[in-house]
């Protein structure tokens, strides 16, 4: 099981590359501008990895998006980010 981090918004073609590179158990952590993908209106873009999407609390807060996430997206803080890297065998960064 790998962790994939993504710092690009849902408009970026990098999202398609990340999704194409993800295995069936892999998790996706949205960071920086990537957290825009946690909004309910964007969830169709993330359908193939639904239930395996995380978003970074600090980056949501700095963009005024806390409390606006889709209920299927799990919000983790920086300690949660560390925990995800512990649990996953390797981390792949998409940017």
């Amino acid at each position, binding site marked *: 099981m790998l962790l994939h981090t993504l*710092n690009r918004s849902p408009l970026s073609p990098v999202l398609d590359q990340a999704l194409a590179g993800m295995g069936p158990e892999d998790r996706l952590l949205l*960071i*920086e*501008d990537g957290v825009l993908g946690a909004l309910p209106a964007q969830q169709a873009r993330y359908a193939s990895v639904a239930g395996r999407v995380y978003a970074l609390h*600090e*980056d949501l807060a700095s963009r005024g998006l806390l409390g606006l996430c889709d209920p299927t997206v799990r919000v983790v803080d*920086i*300690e949660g*980010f*560390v925990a995800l*890297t*512990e649990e996953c065998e*390797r*981390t792949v*960064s*998409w*940017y």
Partner: protein
Amino acid sequence: MRYAILLLDAPYTSQAVHSALRFTRALLAKGHVVDGVFFYHDGVHNAARLAAPPQDEPHLVDAWAELAREHAVPLQVCIAAALRRGLLDEQEAARHGKQGCSVEPPFELTGLGQLVDLGLRCDRLITFGP
């Protein structure tokens, strides 16, 4: 666990440096060992000794140096990426006939082999890109 960080972007450019700093601090707070932060591509600008940001902004170069001092985290800078961007320590400045240097300890100029070594030696390698 043993961690290594790879940072690929310059300070005051994107959020990458802030993300990497916050993540590294969280690792140390949790008791993990950080075997090295490797600065590559535009990330080598993090080692700019002469950086002088406004006083009301975070001093990102000093923030790395502070981490190195307090937690003995090695700060390794790719020498090939650094030289072509004008980032030279005393030894390299002398060798290339330049006055003054732009990199000083705790940052150290090192080869790409060190990144390979970190990847092999550490349990986790986390990349922060632009």
